[in-house]
């Protein structure tokens, strides 16, 4: 019976989260002796419904969704790894705009109170922008936000580097806040891989095999950035070889070579998230309630910890 | 249906029917009559006096507000034993002429082949065998009426309710259809309740004529036609009894239409 891994993207994205697709593609799962089936859904809610329906064994979902569930008493799912702790977000805007803003601007977000809303507010504040001069417009999907920006209906928005690169015609637009600056201002874990407690018990070996494969590939990518640039090539026809290499270099620090679970980061992320309006009136749960370090710890014992990147604090 | 010959084919006792509760006057009121088995009764009366309503009641298509109706001793139930020729022809537009006739045969235990054969037989009788596969919408008014006749005749009903069944036919075709009706009536011992506006036709065909008045619809006279059968259409017109009955009926009708204060044409 294959191990079903649910992804919330439709093609390997131009971010380190592509490690899951590429592990499948490059045979890393097979090497670890686990047959993995990738199931693609559009959004976190579908992934969650699929998990609770037993239609998948592991899913890559937003950390905010996991915390919401636990805060609301749904404690069945636990995080076991994070192949890509935080997506390389950036703020794209019209060329004429600069921080601090001179006038009112409109800023597209997914939804009032959503993760990207909170992160962007943080980033802008950290950069000294007048956030009360910004009109936040909720637009939903990142691609719609990008379209609205390109159409001149809004002044700026947050998107991942992948979306930015995919936009074919960017004339008149520029990156207002680059991914590094963005991450520094709001170092929050965004995505984690979760499994249900039942799967954690019954398919422990498969879980470990999957995580081993992801760690192995992450380490390979970290060791040789060109490897990723090559592997992603079929999915990024619009990028030149050089652009892909450049992109790959910029991810050099982002690979989850130790599984991506760091108790301090997770604590920080939880604290941060619980400050946002979506979590109003909710109480945080201890990290150990929504995270299972055990599978990673078993793996790291045999594989050994990778130095430098991704310190696995517990 | 167990038909004791002693039971009348149809019996109305104190029957009234009002369509519009807001209207004080019923469509038909206090109707009493019996149609013994094998008899031929005609209904004659001014426009809107309730003849059609009476037939619908007799078939059990609508229920009376008061009074009782019995067909062969039981409350009437629509079925192949009671044939109905509607005033408007009511052909099924999406069924061929043959299929329209076959439709009334479906309530009988017949095979498809038997149905087809019987339908064709009756279409021939009404002179439309060539149109068996036509759509009703391509027929003339008189042709439609003949299809409706074939449909009512085909199941060999023991009671026939006919609402001006020959109104759209030319005199000659009408005579042929009258002959078909009479042969069905005499050979199959069917009973007939027949609505017509032609005094001559009523006299030619019936044993009894019920003359109806209007507002409310009611039976004003029951007239026995004691002319021996078979009645030759041409010869009988010269018969003095025929002429007398004819005059009597015409006078009565005139009174009902012109001298009845209830009538729309009172005093014209």
């Amino acid at each position, binding site marked *: 019976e294959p191990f079903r891994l649910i992804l919330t993207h439709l093609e390997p994205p131009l971010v380190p989260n592509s490690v899951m697709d590429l592990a499948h593609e490059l045979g890393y799962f097979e090497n670890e002796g686990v047959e993995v089936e990738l199931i693609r859904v559009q959004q976190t809610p579908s992934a969650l419904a699929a998990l609770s329906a037993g239609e998948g064994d592991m899913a890559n979902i937003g950390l905010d969704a996991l915390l919401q569930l636990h805060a609301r008493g749904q404690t069945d799912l636990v995080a076991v790894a994070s192949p890509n702790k935080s997506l390389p977000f950036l703020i794209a805007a019209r060329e004429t705009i600069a921080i601090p803003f001179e006038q009112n601007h409109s800023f597209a977000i997914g939804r009032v109170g959503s993760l990207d809303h909170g992160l962007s507010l943080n980033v802008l504040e950290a950069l000294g922008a007048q956030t009360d001069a910004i009109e936040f417009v909720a637009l939903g*999907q990142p691609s719609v936000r990008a379209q609205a920006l390109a159409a001149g209906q809004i002044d700026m928005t947050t998107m991942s580097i992948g979306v930015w690169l995919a936009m074919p015609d960017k004339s008149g637009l520029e990156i207002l806040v680059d991914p590094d600056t963005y991450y520094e201002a709001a170092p929050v874990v965004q995505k984690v891989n979760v499994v249900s407690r039942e799967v954690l018990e019954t398919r422990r070996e498969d879980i470990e095999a999957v995580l081993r494969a992801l760690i192995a590939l992450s380490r390979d990518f970290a060791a040789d950035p060109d490897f990723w640039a090559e592997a992603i090539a079929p999915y990024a026809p619009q990028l030149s070889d050089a652009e892909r290499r450049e992109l790959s270099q910029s991810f050099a620090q982002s690979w989850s070579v130790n599984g991506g679970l760091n108790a301090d980061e997770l604590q920080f992320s939880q604290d941060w998230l619980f400050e946002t309006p979506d979590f109003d009136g909710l109480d945080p749960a201890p990290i150990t309630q929504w995270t299972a370090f055990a599978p990673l710890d078993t793996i790291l014992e045999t594989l050994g910890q990778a130095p430098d990147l991704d310190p696995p604090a517990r | 249906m167990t038909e004791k010959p002693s039971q009348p084919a149809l019996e109305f006792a104190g029957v009234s029917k009002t369509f519009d509760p807001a209207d004080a006057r019923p469509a038909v009121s206090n109707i009493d009559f019996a149609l013994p088995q094998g008899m031929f009764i005609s209904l004659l009366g001014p426009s809107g006096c309730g003849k059609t309503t009476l037939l619908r009641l007799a078939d059990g298509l609508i229920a009376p507000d008061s009074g009782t109706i019995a067909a062969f001793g039981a409350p009437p139930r*629509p079925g192949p034993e009671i044939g109905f020729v509607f005033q408007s022809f009511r052909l099924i537009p999406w069924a061929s002429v043959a299929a329209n006739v076959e439709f009334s045969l479906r309530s009988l235990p017949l095979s498809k082949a038997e149905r087809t054969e019987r339908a064709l037989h009756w279409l021939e009788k009404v002179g439309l065998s060539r149109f068996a596969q036509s759509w009703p919408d391509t027929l003339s008014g008189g042709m439609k009426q003949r299809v409706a006749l074939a449909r009512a005749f085909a*199941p060999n009903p023991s009671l026939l309710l006919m609402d001006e069944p020959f109104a759209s036919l030319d005199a000659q075709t009408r005579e042929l259809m009258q002959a078909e009706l009479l042969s069905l009536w005499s050979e199959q011992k069917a009973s007939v309740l027949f609505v017509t506006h032609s005094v001559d036709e009523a006299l030619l065909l019936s044993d009894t004529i019920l003359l109806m008045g209007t507002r409310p619809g009611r039976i004003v006279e029951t007239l026995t036609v004691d002319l021996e059968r078979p009645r030759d259409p041409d010869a009988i017109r010269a018969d003095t009894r025929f002429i007398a009955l004819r005059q009597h009926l015409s006078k009565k009708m005139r009174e009902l239409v012109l001298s009845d204060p209830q009538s729309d044409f009172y005093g014209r």
Partner: protein
Amino acid sequence: MTALYRLAFLFLLILGWFIASQFIGRNIIPTPLATLQAGARLFSEGRLLEATGQSLAVFLSGFFLATFVAIPLGAMMGAIRPFGKTLDVYVFALAATPRVAFIPLVIVLLGLGIEAKAFIVFLGAVMPILINTYAGVLAADKELVEMARSTGAPQTRIFSHIVLPGALPFVAVGLRIGATIGLINTVVAELYTAVTGLGGLLALYGNTFRMAEYFVIVICLAIIGVVMTEILRFIESRLGRWKMS
């Protein structure tokens, strides 16, 4: 003649499209030529056909299921008035509720596969067919029904021979609208359960701004819609031959 007019109109459409592609903002409308090229590429890669096959399987199973449920149910609601009157508010309530709201439930009950997708298509297609059939049955010719009753026809025969054929124009529109909504829901289903088929490609190309490919998928969906409705129209005209004269 009609074919000629249609072609002329198609030409106008493509012209309008071309002009729009030149004047409306970038990233939104590809030129017809680029779309054609993208179409050829997708087709030769076999991707388009595979996706179309997946989507058609979802669409057809959902649509036929909807037909088989909606026509009898609508007919029954029209025939048995208390039954119809009891249910119809709820039918309208259900019809007005976004299908998307039920998707988590559908996934929990039916998973992510073709069953779940077909069910979402079913949810979309069933309502127009049901509502139209219901209205068609209620609009039955009372005189013909009385005639049928007078021949002793049982309810079932009155239904199959008089009421349903009479409701045909209604049912036919219902099926057509149902088919178009079913197609739209195919895309929705393919987006919200496991991503596959034309819906998956639509999302993929939309998210990555490959508008020429995106338009290929949109046109592909439109063509499927036209083919379906033309098939339905053909069936209807066969059944409605008597009206030709």
